[in-house]
């Protein structure tokens, strides 16, 4: 049996926030959600995009951490900062290309998604991917994805000259092999956030759809 992996399909997301609410119920950080649900631009569209840690193969967040507080497990899970080490400098918050880590002022520490380590390490699915009603977030095998989805799972990102590979996959149209971020046709999620791979909104203007009314 092949390994279970995390897949995100932004086109499925319905913005219900079950992932955000369920993340808060996960035993390791109960009361704190580690997922952001980005509303792209509510004026223009109902599109939303969940953003959890992508678990980079070579995580920038860990690289830039002056206190060496961010550790990666042998199976590639980049964990939240270690309590005694984190100095709350927020370097990781600035460096992460996906805008994932959050600096929690109340505990003076960086927190982020750690792949529901308490669950995935014992063969359970992460909380968010279990509950997600649309299965925009799904935790399953590669074969199952290939059998049931039209999109192609990729985990390679290009940020300018830098290529980042992640443990988490996103589903993209079949011809795509790499997501090129920040080169024209991709949008900034919102001011202050890092670039994202979400396509710009096409025609979600209902008035425009009605334009050729007799």
């Amino acid at each position, binding site marked *: 049996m092949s390994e279970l992996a995390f897949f995100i399909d932004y*086109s*499925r*997301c*319905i*913005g*219900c*926030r*079950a992932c*955000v*609410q*369920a993340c*808060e*119920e996960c*035993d390791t950080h*109960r*009361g704190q959600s580690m997922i952001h649900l980005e509303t792209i631009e*509510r*004026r*223009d*569209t*109902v*599109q*939303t995009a969940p953003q959890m840690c992508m678990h980079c193969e070579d995580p920038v967040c860990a690289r830039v951490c002056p206190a060496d507080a961010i550790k990666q497990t042998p199976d590639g899970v980049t964990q939240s900062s270690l309590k005694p080490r984190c100095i709350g400098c927020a370097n990781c918050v600035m460096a992460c290309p996906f805008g994932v880590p959050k600096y929690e002022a109340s505990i003076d520490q960086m927190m982020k998604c750690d792949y529901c380590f308490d669950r995935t390490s014992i063969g359970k*699915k992460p*909380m968010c991917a*279990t*509950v*997600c*009603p*649309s*299965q925009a977030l799904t935790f399953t095998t590669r074969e199952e994805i290939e059998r*049931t*989805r*039209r999109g192609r799972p990729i985990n390679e990102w290009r940020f300018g000259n830098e290529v980042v590979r992640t443990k988490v996959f996103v589903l993209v149209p079949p011809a795509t092999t790499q997501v090129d971020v920040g080169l024209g046709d991709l949008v900034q999620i919102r001011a202050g956030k890092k670039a994202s791979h979400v396509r710009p909104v096409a025609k*979600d*203007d*209902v*008035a425009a*759809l*009605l334009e*050729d*009314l*007799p």
Partner: protein
Amino acid sequence: MAKLPTSVPLLVDRFGPHTHTIPPGGWTSAEEPDRTVKTHCCFCGQQCGIQLKVKDNKVVGFEPWQDFPFNLGKLCPKGVKRYLQGDHPDRLLTPLERVQGEGFRRIDWNKALDRTAEAIRRIQQEHGHDAFAVLTGASLTNEKAYLMGKFARVALRTANIDYNGRLCMVSAAAASKKILGYDRAANPWSDIRKSKCILVAGANVAECAPITTEYLWSAREAGAKIIVLDPRMTPIARTVDLYIPVRSGGDIGIFNGMLHVMIERGWIDRDFIAKHTTGFEEVERAVRKYTPEYASKIAGVPASMIVRAAEMWGPAESSFLLHSRGIEHHTKGVENCMAAINLVVATGRIGREGSGYAMITGQGNGQGAREQGQKCDQLPGHRDIENPEHREHMANVWGVLESSIPHKGLSALEIFEAAHARKIRGMILLSFNPMVSLPDQRFIREAIERLEFFAVIDFFLSETARFADIVFPGSLMEEDEGTTTSAEGRVVHHRQVVDPPGEARQDWKIICDLATRLGPKDKFAFASPKEIFDELRQASRGGASDYYGITWEKIDEQKGVFWPCPELDHPGTPRLYEGGRFAHPDGKAHFQAVEWRPAAEEPDEEYPITLTSGRVVAHYLSGNQTRRIGALVKQTPQPYCEMHPRLAEKLSVAEGDFVRVESRRGSTTLRALIVKTIRPDHVFVPYHWPLERSVNNCTIRAIDPVSKIPEFKICAVRVAKAAPPSDDHVKLAPEAGGLR
């Protein structure tokens, strides 16, 4: 008299809604739960399987139930946070009586029951049996729904029992019964996944039936084309193959227009129609004039969209129709649904894997609660209260004379109209919050205030319970055991998870105690909900919704049983109408010709904008439960008025400005949310909030002549930029009706 005993802010201060944000034991409690109980979420008709974690007789959290077949562990935010309605600071723990000028004070259980029984007796003696009404809910278990019907007809002998399913499913039910014979989704949800063309009419699936989204997306991945009809581009509409921004009330234009094109191009199944249906000639005649151009004027969308829809639906190899409140909440709600179902029957694509039809039931037990005899026109088993054989069957089950069973009574809204006219003098209400959910709130309040006696059973002091003379503390779903029937027609088992707190009692015990005081003691001597279920099985036996062969054990073994299930060794019936056998005595489907007609109130010069109302994903119905759960309140704290930038520009309204939405009946002032995802001639306001923030101040008290559903989806309003409101309630927390 049913009056507010003191000011709303004082009542809110004591009884909420306050938000409960932290689970019992705190967030960090790492202790192992005492047990984890498999049960179901109660916050919509999908009835997702969920496991609740219990510690010291309190629900402290949840764990997904991944092998329950309907949702496989999936949950929406309401399901995730539902456990926080337990151990709530607002929870009613003792019976209460109203003290005018002060509020409520504790009263002893026996006194509360005696006073209520006495009031019922007095009102019925002075004004007749029907002067006392019973109002119930579609969130109740099948057992309680059955008991309420028996309570009204055997203990009270009043014709006037109805339920809030009257605001939810009745149009779909009536249409489906007329054409197909049964009032139930024709297929299990698993058939959606196998369909090649899906028409979603007036169903905001993403927010009101979130789990259904995955069924739609699975079908899409397997090549299905999806068509969505909605005046708003809902989250599912954004990525489907064809989104039709139909104007509210224009749906018949789409359906009849599609059928017109399908007939013209030969995309109907003449063989099937000849063999398995009646009435197609009239339909064919009726749709003749619905050319795409004519239909487009009714629907308010380009004719090309209607043609495109017909091109997708007509020749499809398999197809599935889904509809819900968007086409049902109309004074022509039944006609809307019939026009839609005609499209299914005309293609013969029903009763097969991947082909069929489902209405998406909204309320927790929207399906089951309408089958067990708490509708004013039905006896258990979907039996007709005016049919002599059906009456005789129930007389035998209940051990009463057939002549003692009341005849058809008034529907929910009509009961309030009768109270307003002082024909109904007293009322007992369970699981219903009309002071949020009924249209024309000013009128509803007047009607309640005219009651001589008003008793409410609830676990929280709802906006409606504030008017009660006596309030009985009832039970949450997790504090009682019983069954519900999901949108699929699957009967599921809710296990008791914890005991009711304080002096609160299970609702069925309260009703039995009251019934016993009113006379027929032996008829309400139930020792458990299971005994009620066993009587329900007998009562439904031989009826359309036959539960006779369903036992709680079978439900647990099979993870749900679909009705009809007529014998103990019968596995249940997930898919209806197989082989073109319909549920009418002649075995055929009965086409119904439908002609479009306007809404009760169309926009005009004075009130030029169409108001439509609906739900958001974070809240359930009147919000009596979800406006008390911190995480859900945080997700959507208050209502708003959605409008298109073009309309906003015309009205000089900017994002976040206060706007006053005003109809001939009343108004609400809220903040504007300016979005391109709505028709420029419509505004939308979600309905879960009370007082000055209730969109139902504006909605119209007009009902469908057949189903008696109110027209929540269309009325005429004017909208204007407003100064920050300064009403008595604006400073309350948003969950209580304030505004931020």
